[in-house]
């Protein structure tokens, strides 16, 4: 009787991993939120930076955002915006390379004729153009086709 009980326990333990694994994939009760999703990004005006170049570019960007960009309307069709692109580029590379990336981005921004068919979009409709694709490191490039919609960055 005792040995049968032990065998039963043994088989229960044998079967448990197979069925317990399925629990990871079963959907659970979801937290349904009534709130509407917010698409706009709040500016990050902090001066935190890892090096002098990044600090310089962040300072310039903060000043630009505060005095100019936040009052002259929504002019940039890209996400990240050109100023945010400069900050992120400086983080990825260095201030010199980031400047070159920025001027290239500014040129592409001025191409109002063909840019709309070239880039994927974020869910808010802006053109998705991350700096990781422009670091000259082929391994970092994540190509996405124009019809792709990126989840909010």
């Amino acid at each position, binding site marked *: 009787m005792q040995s049968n009980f032990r065998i039963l326990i043994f088989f229960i333990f044998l079967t448990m991993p197979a069925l317990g694994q399925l629990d990871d994939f079963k959907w*659970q009760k979801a937290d349904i939120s*009534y709130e*509407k999703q917010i698409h*706009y990004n709040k500016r990050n005006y902090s001066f935190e930076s890892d090096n002098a170049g990044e600090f310089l570019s962040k300072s310039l960007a903060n000043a630009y955002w505060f005095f100019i960009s936040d*009052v002259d*309307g*929504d002019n940039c069709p890209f996400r990240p915006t050109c100023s945010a692109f400069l900050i992120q580029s400086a983080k990825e590379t260095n201030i010199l390379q980031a400047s070159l990336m920025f001027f290239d981005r500014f040129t592409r921004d001025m191409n109002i004729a063909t840019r709309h068919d070239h880039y994927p979009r974020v869910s808010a409709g802006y053109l998705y153009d991350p700096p990781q694709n422009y670091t000259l490191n082929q391994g970092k490039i994540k190509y996405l086709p124009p019809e792709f919609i990126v989840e909010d960055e």
Partner: protein
Amino acid sequence: MTSVSKILLLLLFLWISKVNLFAQDSFDEQFNLAKKLYDEEKYFDAVTEFKRLLFFYDGDIYRYESNLLTGLSYKNGSIFSEAIQHLTLAELNSKNIDEIFIARLEIIKVNILRRTTARAFTLLDSLQNDSRFVNKIDEINYWRGWAYIFSDDWRNASSSFSAIQKDHQLSMLCDSVANDLYNPQLAKILSLVPGAGQFYTGEYVSGVISIGWNVLWGYLTINAFMEDRVLDGLLIGSLLWWRFYSGNIQNAEKFAIEKNLEKTNSALRYLQNDYKGSKP
């Protein structure tokens, strides 16, 4: 009839009823098991057991409630398309008008939650126009109010709730939200005077900076024309003054919309977490 015949008839009757009851108990047990899982919020397993019951069951006693609870399980798992499918089956298997009403109301609630409120309104209209549900008008108006809330139409939501009761709690809440919201169109019109739209939405710093830029570029543009530097005037006017002037209008509208979103989300948070009444 002889006494033996009566005894045989009685025994026959008892056997037949016991047999029926006994078989029925198994389906009842299965239904109760599934319902217990639903009550314990183990929705995936509840759906499995309801599906098991419906697969083997040929009758119609359990169909309505099994499909209803399956639909509600999917709703609680945010799988709304499956929820509506099963709630529709529940409605098709309803045995009376109360069950039809409950099933359709649950479908309306799912449409509210997934913000397909146009569909919710269509279903609410169909309930209102159905003479069988004349005495359910208060409930219909209640859920119409919720549908308006989720469509961001707080004024109409307030009207729907006040149709139930003049000083309904949700009517007063919706009124206070509606009164607190900025009017984006008004913000744009006020911005025809640079900075005024931003002041209206409480963004005073942005308004002052906007005034500053518009005054500067306006002065330089007019000065250039007055000095016959027409090209300079056109360039400054179109590239700089117009950019900051239209930007000021855009910003005022954007501030109004952003602040409205924060206010409405705050109200929705209250409704979700603190409101004690029926919710979708």
